[in-house]
């Protein structure tokens, strides 16, 4: 059954919002570059361009074919009498789409930008040692398989979205702006990459204690937070129109919720780092800001502003401690904070929807016969979110880890030690990002 067309206002608004999404990718790229070493800064930005390009092209070839759109062809199997749609059956190369502002064409456009955003996330954890060639292949696997598969389950009419209709779990697994589908998938891939690559040279001493390797430009990082903010306003708004079916006027709530979540997160991160270390930490504040944006995405259109601020504050706290935990306890060297911000923040965003989400009476995806306004549907929503999070951790993470591990067996992903020492800019690009800099600390100290 074809989805009803959007109104002219909704379509125009959605297109404008979608066109803001690349700013989120630009922001993340700058954050990763700024939090890395100066001798790999250009490599980091080039890697982001490569990741965006590969992701967009591969998604065009086969990604949308496997993600699909609700009501369009898909493969299902029966489980105890219920249909579980597991992958779409769209034509490859976007054939079959009508480029007339139809909901499916808008989703395809949004997804090209979203998968590119997801592809940029792992660059944060692989900074300083991830070779460009294997990086491109890893991105192709993410954009061509891992992302579309999970996105079909959530946004393409798949079994996670149908948990409400099939099993009475609220409205099914809901993820309006992509806290899970984009951010957690990218963040879990970042964790897989960090572990497959191993830590940077000199990161951990012989006793396992991590050494601080500060980023080279706090200005880049903090400016990028503003770019990310604009991009997320577009991402959440477009997701709310296309996936939550909100009226364009309700975008005002989406924008307010997105901003309040980021604001509460950064202030929480600043307060915690000031309490622990005597001064607020700029890089963790930046991570907190983006983490608030990440957490806001899932529930941006279905929570009150107070709940959005609470979600952001909790995200800021979680991310601040997660950065410490992943580095110190789990030996996951993550220069850009991608794992903490996107995996932890994204998962919290999904769970917070189960706690704070209040759906309008017009919301769909309910068990047949259940009235939308009954609270009974709310009782199932937290469980639906838990099922989605369990799928991310129990299936998506092993899948993405396995693919990257397999890739590493045949095409080593890590740069040679001399490349890491001299910097990825010279090693892979033949030119430094900052040729006017006369000294680099590695020239005068041993790591």
């Amino acid at each position, binding site marked *: 059954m074809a989805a009803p067309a959007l109104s002219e206002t909704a379509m125009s608004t959605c297109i404008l919002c979608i066109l803001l999404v690349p700013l989120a990718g630009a922001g993340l790229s700058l954050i990763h570059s700024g939090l890395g070493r100066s001798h790999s800064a250009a490599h980091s930005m080039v890697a982001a361009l490569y990741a965006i390009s590969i992701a967009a092209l591969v998604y065009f070839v086969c990604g949308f074919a496997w993600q699909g759109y609700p009501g369009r062809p898909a493969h299902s199997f029966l*489980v*105890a009498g*219920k249909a579980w749609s597991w992958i779409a059956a769209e034509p490859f190369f976007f054939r079959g789409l009508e480029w007339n502002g139809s909901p499916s064409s808008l989703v395809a456009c949004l997804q090209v930008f979203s998968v590119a955003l997801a592809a940029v996330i792992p660059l944060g954890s692989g900074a300083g040692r991830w070779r460009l060639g294997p990086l491109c292949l890893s991105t192709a696997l993410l954009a061509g398989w891992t992302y579309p598969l999970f996105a079909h389950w959530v946004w393409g009419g798949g079994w996670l979205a149908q*948990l409400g209709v099939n*099993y*009475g779990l609220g409205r099914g697994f809901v993820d309006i702006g992509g806290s899970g589908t984009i951010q957690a998938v990218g963040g879990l891939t970042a964790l897989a990459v960090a*572990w*497959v*690559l*191993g*830590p940077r040279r000199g*990161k*951990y001493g012989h006793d*396992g204690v991590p050494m601080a390797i500060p980023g080279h430009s706090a200005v880049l990082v903090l400016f990028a937070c503003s770019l990310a903010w604009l991009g997320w306003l577009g991402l959440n708004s477009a997701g709310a129109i296309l996936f939550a079916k909100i009226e364009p006027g309700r975008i005002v709530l989406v924008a307010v919720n997105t901003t309040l979540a980021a604001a509460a997160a950064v202030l929480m991160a600043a307060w915690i780092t000031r309490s622990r270390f005597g001064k607020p930490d700029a890089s963790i504040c930046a991570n907190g800001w983006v983490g608030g944006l990440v957490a806001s995405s899932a529930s941006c259109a279905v929570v009150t502003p107070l709940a959005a601020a609470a979600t952001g504050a909790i995200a800021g706290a979680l991310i601040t401690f997660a950065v410490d935990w992943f580095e110190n*306890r*789990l*030996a*996951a060297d993550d220069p850009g904070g991608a794992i903490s911000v996107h995996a932890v923040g994204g998962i919290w965003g999904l769970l917070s929807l189960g706690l704070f989400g209040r759906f309008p009476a017009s919301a769909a995806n309910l068990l047949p016969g259940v009235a939308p306004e009954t609270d009974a549907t709310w009782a*199932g929503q937290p*469980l639906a979110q*838990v*099922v989605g*999070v*369990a*799928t991310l*951790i*129990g*299936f998506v*993470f*092993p899948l993405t*880890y*396995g693919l990257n*591990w397999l890739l*590493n067996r045949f095409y080593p992903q*890590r740069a040679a030690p001399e490349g890491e020492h001299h910097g990825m800019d010279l090693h892979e690009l033949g030119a430094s990002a900052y040729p006017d800099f006369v000294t680099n600390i590695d020239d005068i100290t041993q790591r």
Partner: protein
Amino acid sequence: MKLAGFFLLLAGWAIVLAALALLPPALPRVVFVAAGAALEVLGFALVARSHAAHPQEGW
């Protein structure tokens, strides 16, 4: 330890799916979904410990 961890991750997810498909709504389903999630946490902890034990080595 790493392989065992991944096995537990997948097993926990399978328990969650089985709970949805086979158990009646309310308490039994919630309990088994929680059990599956707990198994996943255990599996993740094993995978994480195996990496934390050898921080200098990639794979």
